[in-house]
């Protein structure tokens, strides 16, 4: 299943916040989870994930910490309280958007 790139662009932030609400993850893990849970509908060029993560961190929605694993330095991301608030807002916005779109697609009364 594939979703139009332009359509999926706006939802990356929500997806990242949602995935991190389930537990701390590093970049590659986030991409893998994103592909797995969406049946590869939300695949993105994997490198472009990092500017998203860094922006969210700069805005205080995430914090990052480094862990040494199998000889490699790995950066994990953690959802902050502010991030949880942002996630709740975005989820509500998304529901409103999809509900409204559903109404239109169903063909409501004229």
């Amino acid at each position, binding site marked *: 299943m594939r979703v139009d790139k332009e359509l999926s662009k706006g939802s990356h932030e929500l997806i990242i916040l949602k995935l991190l609400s389930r537990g701390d993850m590093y970049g590659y893990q986030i991409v893998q989870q994103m592909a797995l849970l969406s049946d590869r509908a939300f695949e993105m060029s994997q490198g472009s994930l*990092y500017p998203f993560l860094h922006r969210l961190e700069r805005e205080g929605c995430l914090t990052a910490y480094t862990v040494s694993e199998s000889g490699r*330095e790995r950066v994990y991301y953690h959802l902050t309280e502010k991030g949880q608030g942002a996630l709740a807002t975005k989820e509500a916005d998304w529901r409103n958007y999809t509900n409204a779109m559903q109404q239109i697609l169903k063909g409501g009364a004229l």
Partner: protein
Amino acid sequence: MDWAEDYISRCLRDIPKGKYRERLRRELSDHLAELAGDVSHAGRSEAEARAEALRQMGDAAALNEGFWAEWLRQPERLGYDLKRLFGGCLLAGVTFYFGMALVLIPLLIGNLFTLPGLMAGKASALQSGLNGLLEIAAGAALYAAAFVPNALYLRKAFRRRPRRPALVGGGLLLSWAVGKGSAALLMFPEFGFWNSADIARLLRNAELAWFRWPLVALSLLGCAALGWLFGRDRKRERTEETKDEA
């Protein structure tokens, strides 16, 4: 993993050395290694795994743009800018004072290391020994010798930056202000800057040529002009013009 290092360095082409670049390098390196490992475990050859990993990571030039946009918003950018502006001040200061002490004054007055003599004579030696035009030409040459290298340095330091003319012009103005401040500091003992009457005399009667208002105005204009001249991104302008024509 030379192939990964090569790819990462292309992704980070425009990101200046510092914590953010190091962090990106570490994250991308870890990501690529894990991605290539997974593809390889799925039964692909090493070469195929590399190619697939690079494909999935995305175009290096496009990623460089994304990282660059994010670097511009990183807190470390302020430190980078301040260091470059300070570096520009040092460069301008060194070229200006070396130019003055080792070339201009000996050339015009015929006496090496005359700065102490300049002080003792209440800064009149330079003025009395010159006619107006020669003085302006010498001053212009000295400013150009100090500010053109500084403008080139700032142009390179602030490559790809939005509002680069303002950054280059601002950096030149800062160098100029720091230069003026240093000159004032050097004159502390002689003019007694604690005394406001001395300051007024210095500024109004221009005991030193470069404190005269026309020269101050010319210096400011010069900084703005050099900022515009060296700060413009001619390559980008040409690209935009070509696009418009197309």
